[in-house]
C-alpha cells in the first residue's frame, strides 16, 4: 500500500504540473492581440484613481514609469481576500473565500510538508518543542496551513452548494459538475479534518509520508490518513479538468490583457510582430471582405461592392 501511495503521489504531482504547464503554454502562445486595457491599470503612476499616461500632453515624449511589483502584489492578494466579492455579495464571499482558501492552503500544506521532510532528512526535528528553531517554525506553519485548509475547505464545500441553490442567478448557471466538485472536495477536506482531529493532532503522519516520498521508503500510516492522501492525489489529478487553472490564468489576463498598455513604437519588436500578423490571410465570408486578402490588403481596399471582383466565392 505504501509503495502504491508513493507511486500515485508522484503520478499526481507530475500530472498536475504537466497539464497546468500545457494549459498556461497554450494561453501564452496565443498571438499578440489588439489593446484592450481596462483602468485602473495598477502599474501606472496614477493608479489610485485609474489614470493613465494618456493624461499627459504629448505622452510619447514623457516617461512612463511602471511599478510591476505593485501590480503583482495587487493581483496576488486577491487570491487570499477576494475583495470585489466582499464588496458586492458578502454572503457569497463568506463561503467562496473559505472554499478557495481550502484549495490554496491544502496545496501549500503539502509543499511545506516537502520542505519540512527535507529538513527532517537533514536531521531537523519538527515539533512544537523542537530543539531547533527551524523545526518549531515548520511545525507552526504546517499546523496553520492544515487547519485553514481542512476547516476552510470543509466549510466552503458545505456552504457553496447551499448558496448556489439559494441564489437564482447562481443556480441558473450551475452545472452538475459544480455539485460533483463540492461533494468530492468535501470528502477530501473532511477526511483530512477527521484524520487530524481524531488520529494525528500533530500531523506527524504527513511528515512521515513526505519523508517516505523523498527517501522512496513506503511509510506505515494510519488507514484514515492513507484514505485522505489517496483522495488528495485524485484531487490533484482531477483539478486540471476543472477551471482551477484560473489561479494562474487570471494573473496572465491581468498582465497580458487588462493592464497591457504597452504602446507600439516605430521599429519596435512589437511592430515587427504586428506586421507579421497583419500579413496573414483572411477567410471571413461577409460581402465586404474579400477572402484570401491579407489584413493589410483588406484595410487598404474599401470593401465597397463596386470594387469587388466577381470571382469572390462564398
Amino acid at each position, binding site marked *: 500500500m505504501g509503495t502504491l501511495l508513493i507511486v500515485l503521489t508522484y503520478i499526481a504531482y507530475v500530472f498536475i504540473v504537466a497539464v497546468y504547464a500545457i494549459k498556461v503554454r497554450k494561453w501564452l502562445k496565443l498571438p499578440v492581440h489588439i489593446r484592450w486595457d481596462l483602468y485602473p491599470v495598477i502599474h501606472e503612476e496614477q493608479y489610485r484613481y485609474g489614470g493613465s499616461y494618456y493624461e499627459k500632453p504629448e505622452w510619447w515624449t514623457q516617461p512612463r514609469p511602471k511599478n510591476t511589483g505593485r501590480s503583482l502584489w495587487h493581483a496576488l492578494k486577491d487570491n487570499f481576500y477576494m475583495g470585489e466579492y466582499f464588496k458586492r455579495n458578502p454572503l457569497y464571499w463568506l463561503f467562496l473565500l473559505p472554499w478557495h482558501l481550502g484549495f490554496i492552503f491544502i496545496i501549500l500544506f503539502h509543499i511545506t510538508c516537502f520542505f519540512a521532510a527535507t529538513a527532517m532528512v537533514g536531521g531537523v526535528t519538527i515539533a512544537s518543542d523542537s530543539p531547533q528553531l527551524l523545526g518549531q517554525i515548520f511545525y507552526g506553519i504546517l499546523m496553520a496551513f492544515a487547519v485553514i485548509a481542512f476547516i476552510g475547505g470543509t466549510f466552503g464545500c458545505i456552504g457553496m452548494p447551499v448558496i448556489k441553490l439559494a441564489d437564482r442567478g447562481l443556480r441558473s*448557471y450551475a452545472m452538475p459538475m459544480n455539485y460533483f466538485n463540492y461533494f468530492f472536495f468535501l470528502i477530501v477536506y473532511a477526511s483530512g479534518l477527521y484524520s487530524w482531529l481524531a488520529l494525528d493532532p500533530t500531523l506527524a503522519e504527513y511528515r512521515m509520508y513526505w519523508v517516505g516520498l523523498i527517501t522512496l521508503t513506503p511509510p506505515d500510516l494510519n488507514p484514515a490518513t492513507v484514505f485522505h492522501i489517496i483522495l488528495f492525489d485524485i484531487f490533484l489529478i482531477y483539478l486540471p479538468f476543472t477551471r482551477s487553472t484560473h489561479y494562474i490564468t487570471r494573473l496572465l489576463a491581468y498582465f497580458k490583457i487588462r493592464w497591457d498598455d504597452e504602446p507600439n513604437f*516605430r521599429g519596435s519588436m512589437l511592430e515587427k510582430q504586428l506586421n507579421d500578423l497583419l500579413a496573414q490571410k483572411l477567410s471571413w465570408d461577409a460581402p465586404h471582405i474579400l477572402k484570401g486578402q491579407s489584413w493589410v490588403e483588406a484595410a487598404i481596399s474599401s470593401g465597397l461592392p463596386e470594387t469587388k471582383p466577381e470571382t469572390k466565392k462564398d
Partner: protein
Amino acid sequence: MIRKTGIQDFTKPGGQVAELEPADWMKLPAPYDQMDKPLKKLTEDQRKRMDATLDGVVAIGILPPSMPEEEKAFVDRFLAGVEKLFDAKDNWTFLQPLYHSLEYCVKCQICSDACPAYVASGRQDIYRPTMRPELLRRIISTYVKKEHPLLRKFKASNIELNAQALIRLAELAYRCTLCRRCAQVCLLGCDNALISREIRKIFSQQMGIAPKEVHEKGSVQQIKVGSSTGMTPPALADILEFTEEEIAEKTGKKIKIPVDKKGSDILLLHNAGEFLAWPENLEAFAILFDAAGIDWTLSSELVGYDAVNYGVWYDDVQFARVALRHAQAAKNLGVKRISLGECGHAHKAMIVVADRVLTGELNIPRESALPLMEKIVMSGRIKLDPGRNNFPVTLHDPCNMVRLMGIVEPQRRILRKIAPQFREMTPHGVENYCCGGGSGFAVISSNNFPDWRSSVSGRMKLKQTLDAFADAPSADVKKYVCAPCSNCKGQYRELFNTYGVWEKSGIFYGGLVELIVNAMADLKQPFIQWEWH
C-alpha cells in the same frame, strides 16, 4: 412582473423570451417616476419582416429564414464563423482575451449588478452579462468541439440550435453597450462585454449582418463618401464657412478655421456629428485654439474629417479600414500629431485600438485633446473668469475615454478651475455608468430601439444625472451636464427629450470646450446660449 428566463428559453421556437414592463424597471426620482410608457410594439408587418422574439425590440432586424434549407445554411454559416473566431489568422486581434473569457469565467454573477442595463431593466435575466457568453459557450461545446453528450450533460453545455435562437443571440449582442463595467469587477480577468463584440463580429464579418446605421449607413458610408453622417468634402467646406460666420456673430472674432494646412503641429479629428448637431463644439475648439496660438488644422480628405470609427464596435476589418484612412490623412498633411476632439469611441479607436494596426509611417503620435485643453487652461495664456460658469455643473465620464483609456483627471482639473459649482456624479471616474448610447446605440434609430435605449440602457445615467442635481431640482436653476463625447451627447439629447428634462429640471448638456470658452473673460457675451436642441 419579471419572467424568469433560462438559457433553454432561447432555443424554444415562437414566443418572446422576455417581456419588458415599465413596472419592473428601476425607479427614477420624481417627477420622472410616473412617466414610463411601455415600449412601442412592432407592427404586424414589421414582425413578419424581422424577428423580435428576444424582448420585442429590434436593433438589427433580421429576416428569419423561411425554408428548412435556408435555416440550415444560416446556422452552418454562423458555425463556420465561430470556428474563424478561434483561428489565429482570422482573429488574432482578440483571440487571447476571447479565449480567456470563454474558458475561465466561473459564472459567479458578480458582474450582473455592475451592468446598468441589467439593473435598470429590473434585473431581466436575458441582460445578465453572462448570458451571451454562456450561449456561445454551449454552441461551441455542442457544435464546434462536438463534446460527448455525457460530458455536455455533466457541464450543462448542451444546446439545440436553430435560426431563431441565433437571431435572438444577434439581437442580444446589441443589448450590451460594451461599457465593460462587468469586466472591471471580474477577479478572473474575464470580459463578457468583449464576447458581445465578438458575437457581433461573427454576424458582421461572416454573415454580413449588422444594424444598418452602424454598417451600411455607418462605416460603409464613411469609407464611401467621407463621413457616416453622409457629409461630403464640399459640404464640409460649407459648414466651416457657416461656422466661421457663427463665431464672428457670437464673439466678434474673425477666425479662419485651418483646413489642410500642411506641416501643422496638430491634425484635429472631430466626430462629424459635431459639425451637424453641435457646431458650438467645433466653434469652441476654433476659438480656444486660436486664442492659445495652437498650430492646428482640419483635414478635408475623405474620412479624414470624421473621427468616428464604428468598426470598433462590431467589425475588425471595417475598423482597420477607417483607422488606416485617418492615419493616411494625417500622413498626407505631414502633421506631427493627431489630436482627438470630444468623441469617446474615436479616442479609444484611434489612440488605443489602432495602436496595434498602424505601423511604420502611419504610426503617427495620437493623443486626446483633453490634456492639451488642460495645458491651455492651466498655462494662464487665456484669461478665464469662473464666475461666468457659476451654475451647477456635473461631469459625465465617457466610458471609452475614462474606464478604457484612463483619462480621468484633466477634465476634472479644468472643471475645478472654471466651474465653481462643479459636483461629481455617483459613481464617477473609472466606475462611471455608460450613457446608455455606447457601442453604436446612440446612432441606431430604427424600429423601437430608441425606446429601449431611453427606457433601459440610458436609465441609470438619467437617474445619476438627476441625483447629481438633487439640491437644485427647479427648472429655474439652469444646470449643465458636461459630456465630452459626441455619442454621449446624442444619448443625453434623446434621454432629455424623452423625459422632458430640460423643461422639468432645467438640465442642459454640452461639451467641455464650450464651458472653457464660456469662461473666457474677453468674450463680450456668454458662449453657452442655453438653447435646447
